[in-house]
């Protein structure tokens, strides 16, 4: 039994719903009690879907338990099939139905519907949402491609001639972070390379799109949390290679271009040559990040402390962009995606930090407080943590809230995605010149603590500071000196000084302690 206050991931059947809700002609039946219908609002409210997710629930009640709950499954499947005429059906159970063991999937299969029925096993007491999405996609793809794989050892059948190389984009789903725009951006990028998109799966896909997957030359494993299982199976069964690079940031995108070009047998040089690092904003370069980062006014971004947390894919890529492309210092890196913990641990080593692998929100909050970053790149949960601690924040990963689904085109993958990252990470920070002015004129009444940087809509509510147990006491002069430090670094100065004093067993903090600590932590 594990105490959960807020969770990063829903149960695995919500992952199954994300696959169904991404597709156009697949319907999902869930054996679940009425309260589980709450999950519809994730799609219709957070992502503003204009149709209900294609999901039917049996909504069994306690009084049904003595009788035939299995009958409810059959009725629900039959009615859903008759009403929605899907081309394939997913049948699964939520946590409660798993316990009553009605074998919903097998029951539905026994109904001999004229469309493929995919029984789902979604262990609700050990697995979570992303696993459920990955498993559902994998099962659906396997079912729809059953009997189509060449015999083991046999050569892969030649692609139909007369057309250029193509790729499938795998893993984009409803409620995936910026997935809607990423597939457009990556599709454009591939088109510039002369590579067509054979199918995007599952976002916007039909069952027939899945049947066409083997016609492509290779797969793009866009969101490994969801698509890695499918990509590896397609490689095993159909000999289709898949990309390993995540096209996030300028460097990630350039590497992706090279990798995709190699898999397709095309020349990446024309695309790469146009995207020259340092190319001016008025050049043909689509990516402005490299030039903006070199622009002198960005100097103030140097070494800003950033804490990164999210799913593994976005967290690893974001840390790399932060360090290599913007010049931040990564002071924390973590993920809630245990399945990919190893990759995150490896990445963390590059920044000399210990990876934080947890789905305990309070633990993340403590780690952020301890790292005292100036910017948090996280999920909507970290947005709340950062707000409480008065730290700037940008969202880089699911779970999302409604404001993370912007109306405008805002991919985070590809060259345009890199531009979006630069803007959305730099915007929450106090800008360079402004930072100097604030420091120089900190006694000016307009620069008092409550006045936020002028380009920020609201001042981050000052975080209530819980004193550490047996925290050293500040002397009056110490406090006065602390008050002279600009407000946006004051919380950090306070924490560092207290830590410094505590570690040295000092009972009081004087002006000297403050400056000794500053020298100690100074970069």
């Amino acid at each position, binding site marked *: *039994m*594990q*105490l*959960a*206050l*807020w*969770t990063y*991931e*829903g*149960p695995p*059947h*919500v992952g199954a719903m994300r696959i169904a809700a991404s597709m156009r002609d697949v319907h999902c039946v869930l054996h679940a*009690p*009425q*309260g*589980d*219908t*709450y*999950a*519809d*609002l*994730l*799609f*219709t*409210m957070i992502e*503003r*879907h*204009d*149709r*209900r997710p294609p999901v*039917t*629930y*049996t*909504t*069994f*009640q*306690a009084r049904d*338990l003595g009788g035939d709950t299995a009958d409810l499954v059959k009725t*629900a499947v039959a*009615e859903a099939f008759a*009403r929605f005429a899907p081309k394939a059906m997913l049948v699964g159970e*939520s*946590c*409660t139905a798993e*316990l*009553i063991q009605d074998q919903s999937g097998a029951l539905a299969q026994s109904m001999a519907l004229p469309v493929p029925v995919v029984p789902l096993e979604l*262990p*609700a*007491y*050990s697995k*979570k949402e992303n696993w459920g999405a990955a498993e559902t996609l994998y099962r659906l793809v396997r079912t729809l491609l059953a009997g189509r794989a060449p015999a083991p050892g046999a050569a892969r059948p030649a692609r139909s001639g007369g057309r250029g190389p193509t790729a499938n984009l795998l893993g984009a789903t409803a409620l995936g972070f910026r997935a809607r725009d990423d597939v457009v951006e990556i599709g454009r990028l591939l088109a510039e390379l002369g590579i067509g998109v054979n199918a995007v799966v599952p976002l916007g896909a039909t069952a027939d799109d899945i049947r066409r997957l083997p016609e492509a030359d290779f797969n793009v494993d866009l969101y490994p949390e969801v698509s890695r299982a499918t990509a590896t199976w397609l490689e095993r069964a159909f000999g289709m290679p898949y990309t390993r690079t995540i096209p996030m940031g300028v460097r990630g995108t350039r590497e992706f271009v090279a990798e995709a070009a190699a898999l397709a047998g095309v020349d990446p040089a024309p695309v790469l040559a146009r995207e020259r690092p340092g190319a001016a904003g008025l050049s043909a370069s689509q990516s402005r990040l490299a030039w903006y980062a070199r622009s002198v006014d960005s100097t103030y971004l140097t070494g800003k402390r950033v804490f990164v947390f999210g799913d593994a894919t976005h967290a690893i890529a974001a840390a790399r962009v932060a360090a290599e492309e913007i010049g931040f210092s990564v002071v924390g890196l973590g993920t809630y995606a245990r399945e990919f913990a190893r990759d995150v641990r490896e990445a963390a080593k590059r920044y000399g930090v210990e990876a934080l692998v947890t789905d305990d929100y*309070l633990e993340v*909050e403590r780690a952020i407080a301890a790292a005292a970053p100036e910017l948090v790149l996280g999920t909507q*949960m970290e947005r*709340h*943590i950062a707000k*409480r601690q008065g730290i700037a924040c940008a969202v880089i990963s699911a779970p999302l*809230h409604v404001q993370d689904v912007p109306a405008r085109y805002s991919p985070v993958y590809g060259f345009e995605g890199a531009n979006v990252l630069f803007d959305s990470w730099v915007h929450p920070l106090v800008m360079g010149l402004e930072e100097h002015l604030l420091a120089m004129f900190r006694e000016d009444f307009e620069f008092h603590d409550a006045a936020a940087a002028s380009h920020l809509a609201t001042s981050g509510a000052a975080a209530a500071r819980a004193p550490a147990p047996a925290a050293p006491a500040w002397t009056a002069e110490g406090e006065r000196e602390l008050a002279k430090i600009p407000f946006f670094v004051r919380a950090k100065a306070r924490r560092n000084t207290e830590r410094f004093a505590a570690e040295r067993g000092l009972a009081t903090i004087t002006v000297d302690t403050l400056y000794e600590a500053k020298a100690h932590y100074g970069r």
Partner: protein
Amino acid sequence: MTDLSALPPASALPGCGSAAPVLRERGQREVFCGLTSIVWLHRKMQDAFFLVVGSRTCAHLLQSAAGVMIFAEPRFGTAVLTDRDLAGLADANEELDRVCVALLERRPDIGTLFLVGSCPSEVIKLDLAKAAERLNARLFPRVRVVNFSGSGIETTFTQGEDNALRAMVPLLPQTQAKQLLVVGCLADVVEDQLRRHFAALGIDPVAFFPGRRAAALPGVGPGTLVLAAQPFDGETVRALAGRGARPIASPYPFGAEGTTAWLAAAARAWGVAPERLREVTAPLAARAAKAVARHRDRLAGKRLFVLPDSQLEIPLARFLAREMGMALVEVGTPYLDRQMVAAELALLPAGVTLSEGQHLERQLDRVRAARPDLTVCGLGLANPLEAEGLATKWSIELVFTPIHGYDQAADLAEVFARPLERRARLAV
């Protein structure tokens, strides 16, 4: 517009026998489970913690229903069952005790711990009553542990509140004193207003259940008059009656008419002189009627379809029909507790279609066929219906905003007028 003499006295209201025919449906129910009640109950009772014993689904539901997270450590959480707990029940009991004790150690501010049953805990027959007993033996009187069910197989949405309050009834101290006990979770601002009204009527003492602290329990006994402020607290009212209290039948305090009728029912039962009642309520009712009139233009003559969800459907439909002049196409309710809504049913216009339970797809077919001007529904349905060109109001707002009493009557009207007002403004 609220002429009290036009209302039949509550005691003379017909029972269910005379009510309109009801369309009973079985099929997919698109409603929250009782766990959702925790979202407002924990705000009301500031010394209470609600620990759901359930699954990741339950935790996810609570988080999704709570919407925006504001609290680092909210006063609710989920003890998530894992494979290990399912392997052997003894283990699960020990685990639960461990989680509770650890939680209470970290939260010394908590005086009442609610153990909330969920579908999984009930299906595996994890006995939360026993667990509460065990924990009480260990923790009482510093902390009192109470258990109730919020599971989706037993409860719908607001029924969670009913179960929580019902579970507290045996704990209420016995009293012989004459008092009025108002039942139902109300926003503090509403509670304060109603207190002032009762004081003006000379009704004193008045207790509210639940109060702002779970530990401050009101008394109950033969001198207690019970006035329900929420139509979904039926089991609680019946349990209080079982403790000797006398329930007062009344419409609910929604709108000027409903609030007057509600205060009138209390006044009659208490023995307040009719002139005093009129003196106190007439100016308040007039003020409320004036405030709601602003929204009447927007709503009058508009056709309303109410999908089942919060169990507030019948009283709200009565308000919208009688005070706002809306035409009722269909009023759905998750279940019909005739005893609790008898006075409301009597006020509904003749010929209204009531439906109980739900077959979602068939009901949506009826919505599409009727094309109402406004559809009240859950969050999962609102945007899809809007996309079909139908104006909607999500019902969850009705349990998260103060809507009871005279001074909230206009806010209540506005909740329904706003979607129409918005459509009128938008030119895209």
